[in-house]
């Protein structure tokens, strides 16, 4: 099955965006993002902490609906899902 991953802002600079990828059935949200983020160590470090957990301020969405970071590892992705990952933009 195929999913689309959209990174925003700083994450986009480091990892690109609108990445369409094939995933195995049963893949969960966290493992998908880990796989994508590992393509750039700096991108990975922007999203995950030293223990491999999502940084607390990262916002995750699946088809326009918020996914809580705590639920990401148990949330499966489905065919044609659109996944968005973004940081709060803080400057002013």
């Amino acid at each position, binding site marked *: 099955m195929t999913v689309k991953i959209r990174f*925003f*802002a*700083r994450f986009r600079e480091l990892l690109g965006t609108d990445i369409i990828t094939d995933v195995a059935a049963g893949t969960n949200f966290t493992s998908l993002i880990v796989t994508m983020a590992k393509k750039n160590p700096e991108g990975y470090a922007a999203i995950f902490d030293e223990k491999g957990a999502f940084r607390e301020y990262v*916002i995750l969405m699946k088809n326009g609906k918020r996914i809580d970071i705590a639920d990401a590892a148990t949330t499966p992705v489905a065919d044609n899902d659109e996944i*968005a990952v973004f940081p709060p*933009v803080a400057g*002013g």
Partner: protein
Amino acid sequence: MMFSESERERYRRQMMLFGDEGQERLKKAHIFIAGAGGLGSPVSIYLAVAGIGTITIVDMDVVDQTNLNRQILHCDRDIGRKKTTSAKEKLQAINPDITVNAIDVKIDETNADDLVGEAHGIVDAMDNYPTRYLLNNAAIAKGIPLFHGGIRGFYGQATTIVPGTTPCLKCIFPKSPPKEVFPVVGVTAGFIGMVQANEVIKFLLGIGELLTGRLLIWDGMQAHAEEICVERNPACSACGSMVKKTTAGKKR
């Protein structure tokens, strides 16, 4: 409310859009702008020229040369001066018919509500989330909108928060990102600041569709804007206890 001949001339081209009544609404309005920096500069300049009757702008900093690529309220000769002094001088020069209160203070939990006072709306032109959360709390406590904006590099975001109706800032961004010296180009501040100022004007006039329940995300590198729908968090620590309003108060 009467307009002077000078005011009628000044606002002639926009009174073609919303008439005496609309201009009067702007003149009677009081908007609180938190920050006289990258976002606060374009927001305050455009609200001043539009004729917002009272603008309160708050900042605790002194103009630094590194501010000048984006903080267009301040000039080279202002380096070392208080941003509030510089802001008041420029805004009054741009439009002497409005009242500008410039307050040189750090916004904290003890003074946020008092600073906002009787303002009809709060513009978030801050550079950090802890202070944004204080503005969010003040907006919720007073039941007035918070016009949020954030920028970094060529990226920006904006949304309009109407307490009790839309998600609040904490619903959308529950945790603040770490503080950093963020890279930024002035045009990003200008772009997002214009979205915020446009929202303020529409809100005060009670026209158009506000950027509510939607987070606008701007990617200047791609020249692409998109929206993400955002929802209230019933368990939100800031607004979770507020009863949902059935009608959005479009007109104040």
